[in-house]
């Protein structure tokens, strides 16, 4: 179950990776690279302007064992939140 937008906006991410302007699968690869720089239990926020990313990241998180927290839609891009679990 993902968090509400209000809850998401209160999160303090440990790392924000700005992948806006890169096309799929650029933001996904950026997330994979960045998650190792977040402490276990910490939060990664990915900014992406590619509409595929908000669907890819929940699938990625499930596959590799992290927790997808939710998405906030902003004008022209998405903010996607993932908690590192291992």
């Amino acid at each position, binding site marked *: 179950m993902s968090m509400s937008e209000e809850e998401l906006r209160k999160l303090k991410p440990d790392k924000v990776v700005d992948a806006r*302007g890169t*096309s*799929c699968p650029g933001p*996904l*690869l950026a*997330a*994979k690279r960045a998650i190792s720089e977040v402490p276990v239990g910490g939060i990664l926020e990915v900014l992406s302007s590619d509409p595929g990313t908000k669907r890819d990241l929940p699938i990625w998180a499930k596959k590799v064992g992290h927790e997808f927290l939710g998405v906030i839609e902003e004008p022209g891009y998405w903010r996607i939140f993932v908690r590192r679990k291992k």
Partner: protein
Amino acid sequence: MNFNKNIGEGNLAEKMCITVMSGSIDRLIGMAVLTSAAVSMDMEVEIFLQLWGVYAFKKDVIKQNMNLSEFNELGEKVASRLKELKIPPWYEMLREAKETGRVKIYACSAAASIWNVKKEDLEFVDEIIGAGEWIEKMSDAKINLFI
């Protein structure tokens, strides 16, 4: 006879194998995108280059190649869109994937003979191998593709 014995035993590897016959950059872009995505999903990727694939990985060809497999009249339009969208060339995408995850690239020994090339003449190539070894590598992969 049980053709799916590996699936039955549940021992397929988290691995994607791509057989690359084509040397056309549109297809190579597709290959690089899927390689990058598979690496992101923590999958191992193995790539086997055949005839035109080996040619396209030659160090003196890789950056010069502008060959498309279809819709050639749209080549310039596609090239300018790729540039506008800041999509890197396929070989840069592949380089980044190889630096980030487990990606092995093999060249077919027969194709290497046809082009008279050694491993050192080819970008990214880890080994020159035979088709039998490649069949063995493909046989335990969850995903197998041919381009």
